[in-house]
């Protein structure tokens, strides 16, 4: 070790020199500090082959969609096809809905893969006191972990979606943009809602289960079980409002309204939004209860 005993007299009691001066230089602000945890987590996630592979596979569909946009904007290429096909090749609400549905499924799998490693290891290793013995609050910690998933899921959802929208706007011209800007805004907002829901589910699973495998199962089970329950209610009571309990269905219903696509029969947008907020609130509550620096004995 580099340090030797004070004055070479190891057996003496400490003699206070009181000459110590701590660092007085500038330090980064709260928001800059909050970026540290996501950066650390992303570096770790991108070292995992499975995560990278899933992201690459998830970007195949956006590439095909980009080809579709290119085709739709090149009338010469469509000349050889029939009128029915030509009317099919159109970039509209249905196109973005099809794009969103596929990417939303990939987002679920990515959340199930990346989400469990967010909080579970910190809880299992008693690492939360380490975080909270820095200038970091519980909400800062939760926000940082949310940002990890938000960033990851954005890569395969609204970011390629916005690219497609921009590509279409660039190729179709200003008129198309002004007539359809709601599609772009709806797609981004719809994905943000989906990402929030997924991230909260993944974080709650990670905080509750502590074991990564179980937490991953929780994310998948969250959608399948609630979907099953909603179908059960609809079947037993011969109603359609049970769909509101299915977060995937409720999100889809909101997307339909945003993209102006005909929705399936079932509860309206206000009911779906309310239900999603209730579910998100409950998930946030689980996180709030579990993310504590010290285990509280009850």
């Amino acid at each position, binding site marked *: *070790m580099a340090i030797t005993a004070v004055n070479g007299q190891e057996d003496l009691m400490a003699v206070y020199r009181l000459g*110590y001066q*701590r660092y007085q230089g500038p330090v980064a602000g709260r928001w800059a500090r909050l970026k*540290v945890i996501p950066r650390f987590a992303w570096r770790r996630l991108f070292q995992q082959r499975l995560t990278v592979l899933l992201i690459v596979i998830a970007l195949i569909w956006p590439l095909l969609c980009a080809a579709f946009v290119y085709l739709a904007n090149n009338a010469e290429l469509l000349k050889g096809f029939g009128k029915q096909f030509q009317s099919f090749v159109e970039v509209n609400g249905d196109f973005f809905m099809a794009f969103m549905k596929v990417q939303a499924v990939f987002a679920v799998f990515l959340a199930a893969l990346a989400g469990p490693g967010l909080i579970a290891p910190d809880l299992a290793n008693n690492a939360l006191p380490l975080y909270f013995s820095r200038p970091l609050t519980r909400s800062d910690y939760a926000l940082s972990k949310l940002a990890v998933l938000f960033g990851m899921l954005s890569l395969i959802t609204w970011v390629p979606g916005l690219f497609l929208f921009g590509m279409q706007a660039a190729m179709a011209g200003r008129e198309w943009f002004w007539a359809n800007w709601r599609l772009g805004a709806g797609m981004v907002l719809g994905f943000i809602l989906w990402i929030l829901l997924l991230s909260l589910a993944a974080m709650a699973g990670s905080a509750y289960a502590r074991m990564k495998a179980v937490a991953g199962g929780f994310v998948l089970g969250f959608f399948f079980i609630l979907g099953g329950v909603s179908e059960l209610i609809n079947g037993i009571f011969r109603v359609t409002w049970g769909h509101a309990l299915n977060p995937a269905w409720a999100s889809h219903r909101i997307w339909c309204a945003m993209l102006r696509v005909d929705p399936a029969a079932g509860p309206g947008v206000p009911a779906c939004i309310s239900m999603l907020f209730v579910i998100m609130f409950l998930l946030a509550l689980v996180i709030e209860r579990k993310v504590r620096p010290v285990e509280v004995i009850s």
Partner: protein
Amino acid sequence: MTEPTVIFEEVSKFYGEVLGVNRITLRIPPGITSLAGPNGSGKTTLMNLMTGLIHPDHGSISMRGISSRDPERLMHITGYATQYDAAPRWATGFSFITTGLLLFGYRRPEAEEKAWKALETLGLAEAAHRKMASYSKGMRQRVGLAQAIAHEPELLVLDEPLNGLDPLVRAETIVLFRFWAAQGKHVILSSHVLQEVDAISDRVILIANGMIVAEGKIRDVREEIQERPSKFIVRCREASRVAALLFSEDFITEIRLNEDRQGLLVLAKDRERFSRSIRRIALDGHEIDSVIPADESVDALYEYLIGEGK
């Protein structure tokens, strides 16, 4: 100038109906202070209260003038090493410490410089860029200490910091504690190894069942336990003669002669009068080799104050 102090004023903490600590009032000056007590006595609760990880249900805590409810300021002056091995195994020691410093708001070059300094101080420079999965238990323990000291805090709270360290590293770490204390910092640690607490500490806080049983310098605490006679080991040539002389005093309660007849274990109710008597015996020409207090140790205090209550 008043020295910065850790102050607990009537602090109580309950976990539901379970007592954490109750009505704790403390004033801890800079230096090395050890918390000693049985498992579940409230040592870690006290440390968590100091670091603001939990808040008291009653009372207030001031850490060198900063409230424990002000984490933004408190954490900049506090370094906490928990009893858990919480460092991620897949990270290198250097990246772990650097990331911790970035969370404090240091810019990367400063964070890296400080991380390097902390790792060097703990003798981990060579292993700095190795994944922590390959570290031994002692090395991981030192990483825990390194992350606590890396931002150069004024107040170190260390929960069982010597666990898992081999004797050589233990000795080096104790030297390090003394070095920090000599700079005017607070080094507050908990330990089960009472001999170590004895050797390290400027003062001890004995805690049992969530309450402070004794607090202060070990000798001062011992002197206050008047219902238990003080024990002394006296080494001398004429042990039987010295024993006879001592027995004439009314404050002597018991004397045991050692098998080699050159040593005595003396139990005295009054330390001052015993000191005067033994001096007088020596001045009268009886050869006294040494007089050593046998129960001025945390071990003895622990036994008197906590052991008997159990």
